[in-house]
């Protein structure tokens, strides 16, 4: 429960601790498909009644799926909170699916796959990088699923998955907005409190990554690629799995290395050497098992991917060797910590931040103390994190190239 009394509005979210990484092998895309099917109605609220009520009160709704969680939310005038809770509580166990609604929705998901992935060479490369990065862990499969497997998904698959994972004891409710904790508690007791658990929640033990011993490269060649680019991903710990302080150090590292135009990669590759037109880095810390640390760059015309990669590797070697300066450190920390203030301006984003953290094994306390954790990061910790993490043996480098260019390489 996150108070925000600036407007009489509430954001209501339910997060299920199940995502694409919890799917059975051979059924990729099922978590996301079920998310779509959750809008098909229940016995008590058939068809699109829930959506219609949200629309009629001027509300917004949406849903999302990641590797680790599936979430549903509404933003409505605060007086409608309890009604939303009643609808969501009903849909935890009451979903009704017929082939008449399942079949068209499968086609919708296939079109979504076309739009997001098949039509976009860069997304296709992203999928191949993830598949190569995780040797054993299911984060290697796309959340939307592999197309041949999506095509095979059935109503029975969806219902089996639903009965196994959609149960109140596997859900988290996050409410942000113009209500009090006492009101939320009372409304939740009256709605969610009435739904009995229907499944045991098993511990989320997924396959583990072995020691990664070999750097990998993948190349996606497509005639439509007019602008080559490079992206690299390193296997990283998540905020949930990292040793104390390590994920905070990685956030600072990502910022110093590639957050914006002051970053080392941008300054070196774009401004000083002129080998790239863009370059940056990111770290995704919110995950149950592994985070991801990524770098990317786009070569300037006349420069090759090889030129760009050599320049990246030089920047990495330097930061591993020398670490970061005191000035870089304080600048990065200030910038990151300010985001916590900016987040307070966006109720929905704040709710999402907490929800994602809780659904991936963090605690409310961990989220609340994040600014302090960032403030406590030392230059030594950043250097150590760089030395440990930026190990090419635990990385995949992806090249996006024009198809003809790739064939020439082979001949």
């Amino acid at each position: 429960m996150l108070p925000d009394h600036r407007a009489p509005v509430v954001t209501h979210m339910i997060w299920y601790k199940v995502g694409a990484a919890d799917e059975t092998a051979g059924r990729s895309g099922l978590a996301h498909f079920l998310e779509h099917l959750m809008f098909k109605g229940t016995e008590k609220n058939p068809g699109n009644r829930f959506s219609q009520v949200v629309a009629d009160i001027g509300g917004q709704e949406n849903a999302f799926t990641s590797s680790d969680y599936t979430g549903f939310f509404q933003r409505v005038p605060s007086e409608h909170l309890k009604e939303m809770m009643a609808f969501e509580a009903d849909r935890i166990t009451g979903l009704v699916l017929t082939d008449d609604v399942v079949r068209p929705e499968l086609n919708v998901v296939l079109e979504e796959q076309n739009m997001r992935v098949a039509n976009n060479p860069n997304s296709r490369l992203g999928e191949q990088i993830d598949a190569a990065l995780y040797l054993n862990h299911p984060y290697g499969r796309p959340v939307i699923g592999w197309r041949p497997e999506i095509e095979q998904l059935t109503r029975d698959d969806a219902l089996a998955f639903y009965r196994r994972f959609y149960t109140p004891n596997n859900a988290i409710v996050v409410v942000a907005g113009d209500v009090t904790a006492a009101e939320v508690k009372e409304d939740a007791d009256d709605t969610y409190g009435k739904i009995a658990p229907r499944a045991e929640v098993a511990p989320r033990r997924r396959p583990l990554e072995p020691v990664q011993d070999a750097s990998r490269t993948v190349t996606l060649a497509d005639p439509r690629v007019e602008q080559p680019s490079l992206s690299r991903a390193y296997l990283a710990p998540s905020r949930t799995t990292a040793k104390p302080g390590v994920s905070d150090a990685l956030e600072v590292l990502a910022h110093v290395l590639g957050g914006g135009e002051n970053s080392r990669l941008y300054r070196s590759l774009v401004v000083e050497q002129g080998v790239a037109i863009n370059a940056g880095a990111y770290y995704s810390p919110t995950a149950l098992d592994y985070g991801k640390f990524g770098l990317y760059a786009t070569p300037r015309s006349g420069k090759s991917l090889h030129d760009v990669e050599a320049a990246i590797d030089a920047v990495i070697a330097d930061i591993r060797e020398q670490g970061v300066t005191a000035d870089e450190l304080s600048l990065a920390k200030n910038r990151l910590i300010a985001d916590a203030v900016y987040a307070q301006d966006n109720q929905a984003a704040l709710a999402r931040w907490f929800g994602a953290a809780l659904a991936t094994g963090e605690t409310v306390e961990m989220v609340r103390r994040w600014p302090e954790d960032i403030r406590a990061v030392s230059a030594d910790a950043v250097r150590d994190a760089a030395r440990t993490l930026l190990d090419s043996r635990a990385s995949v480098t992806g090249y996006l190239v024009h198809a003809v260019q790739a064939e020439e390489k082979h001949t």
Partner: protein
Amino acid sequence: MNAVLARFDYRNLRDFTRPLLIAAMFVATTPAFATTIERVVSPGGIEAWLVHEPAVPLIALDFAFIGGAVQDPPCKAGTANLVASLLDEGAGEFDSKAFHNRLERKAIELSFQAERDTLHGSLRTLSENKDEAFDDLRLALTAPRFDASDIEIMRGQILSMLRRAATSPNEIASQRWWQAAFPGHPYSHPVSGTLESVTALTADDIRDYSHRVLARGKLKVAVVGDIDAETVRTALDRIFGALPAQPELKTIGTMAPQGLGKRIVVKLDVPQAVVTFGGPGIARNDPDFMAAYIVNHILGGGSFSSRLYQEVREKRGLAYSVYDSLVWLNYTALFLGGTATRADRAGETLDVIQKEIRRLANDGPTAQELANAKAHLNGSFVLNLDTSTKIAALLVQLQLDGLGTDYFRRRPEMINAVTLDDARRVAKRLLDAGLLVTVVGRPEGLASIGAE
């Protein structure tokens, strides 16, 4: 970990213009957050709309200069866009590195964007850093450096984006639509320019454009957050006071979209065909605008209940994304929609869309649809104004649209005043003119119609 997938996807809206995005956050009941809009005028005569909200220690400042990409000189498409990309790349005594350093040190977020009709800027700062933030903005607007090295970097980034766009089905569908709809008009040119035009732009073009457009006379400003009216008054002169009084804008003619009835099919080897469709809209100051806004909502507006969403996605599974929006610009008004669908059913999808447009044009909406749409549009106001940045953007848009600070109060009355007869009449007016359609991909059985 993979990206998060959402049930709906609004990304397709990005190709369009700013007013369209604002359309989704239209106004109805009075929200607590934005209850009081104060009109503030500085001693130097610069006006801003202010919402004072001290609950969170930050300030969002939004502004727009009239004269966006339409003011690009002939054969120099992309000038405004390049200028916008350079305005935060160094100013006064600070080169780009020093300038970015100043911004980042105080976590000040400053960005500029060229739209079709405006050059738009946006500043966000913690309130404790407002003095530095306002100084940085003043420098960016009044003393931009436009260093040669920065011009080359930004040009390189834009050219790279244009190379990507050259094989992106969404970009091609949108660009071909605007080209066919506005022959000979500045709206036919992409805001970002073309590979040829951007390659040829010079430092003089950039300076000339910024001298002509960055002026006080056609400036709209909004401020939201932890700052009071007195402070805003002083800040306005400090930030914008040194700009020239009036811009030097060339006259642009109005134009209705051309090519109605045409279908342009562009072959591209992608599995999914991308469709853009549209026709003439209704001007923002037209008495029928609100009725048209409601009709559009019923046809393909933001919610799942729209006819296009139901017929194309929900019943037939033909597409993930299908939408339609009103677009109002200074020199035209449109309704514009799109979808993306599998190649072998592209013809069917387009048939369904055209049938629904015809049906709504001929029969109008039902009383129930009208009531639902009004309820939704009235209720959604508070919900959509949930961040300072969004409120600031809306306040600038209302000023650009020539609406008053009492608009929040008047809007529900305007919505509720639309009768079923109005809606029927305006549906006919809006949707009966015929469509210009572009399709990119390898759609089976769909050929160009009426296009060279």
